[in-house]
């Protein structure tokens, strides 16, 4: 009796979508520069409360990072480099998962659990200073 691994296809699709989203974020940062301040996505905090928030300048910071201008990236938003690094690592993880999904390895379930744990761990590590500052807002 042949049992098909029913996790392979959804896992592959999810990883393909996320890889696409992260690549889109990088392309968005490449298209819109920090100097022009022409990012089309409005800041919600400015829009509702009329005030800058902890994430203000994050898009501009990403634009600076993709241009390797780390000083400007830090100036635009102090958490920009860390958050961008998280997305970059995620892209690598997604690409690895896509490769495994295409090869249809039998241990994909174990890899998916490890991937989830690593992602949560990285999320905590890279977003920790941001969370600390966030808690001060309340």
């Amino acid at each position, binding site marked *: 009796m042949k049992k098909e691994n029913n996790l392979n296809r*959804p896992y592959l699709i999810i990883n393909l979508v996320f890889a696409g989203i992260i690549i889109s974020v990088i392309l968005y940062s490449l298209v819109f520069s920090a100097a022009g301040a022409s990012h089309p996505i409005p800041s919600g905090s400015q829009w509702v*409360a009329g005030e800058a928030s902890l994430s203000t300048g994050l898009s501009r910071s990403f634009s600076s990072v993709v241009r390797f201008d780390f000083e400007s990236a830090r100036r635009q938003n102090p958490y920009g480099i860390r958050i961008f690094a998280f997305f970059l690592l995620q892209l690598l993880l997604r690409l690895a998962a896509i490769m495994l999904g295409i090869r249809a390895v039998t241990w994909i379930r174990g890899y998916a659990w490890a991937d989830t744990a690593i992602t949560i761990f990285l999320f905590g590590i890279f977003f920790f200073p941001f969370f600390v500052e966030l808690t001060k807002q309340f």
Partner: protein
Amino acid sequence: MIMEEIKSNAGQGLGIAGLVIGILAIPMGIIPCTFYLGILFGIVGIVLSLVALTQANRGGGPKTLIIAAMICSIVGLTLASVWGFVFSRNGAQVVKEIIKEEMYRDDRSGDTERGVREVLKDLETDTATWPVPSPDMQEMTDSLQMLEEGE
């Protein structure tokens, strides 16, 4: 003879869509500037998960992925709503301060108006005795008259 295990895929497509949107709702909900996208994604994720769950129940499909999608969507929506609440409160505070400032200004202008009338009365009395009003005094009188007329 090879027997393939036939498993229903009912609700899987929508479940995957719900999971992707639900996972996206979490960082969107955490980042203050994109809280509105977190709310939107959270709601869409919950709706997709509910539809997927209904389809899975009817067709006997697996539910693990759909439940994960629903949990992620709810977490994302909750985080985004917290920011929405904080910003609305801050926004309301800003509006209140503006209104208070306006009221204070109105109150002060009321005082000024009363003051202007008194000063004008004094000036009329004083300047009546002067042969020619000094340029400064004339300017002041004109300004006060303009103020009184509300120009």
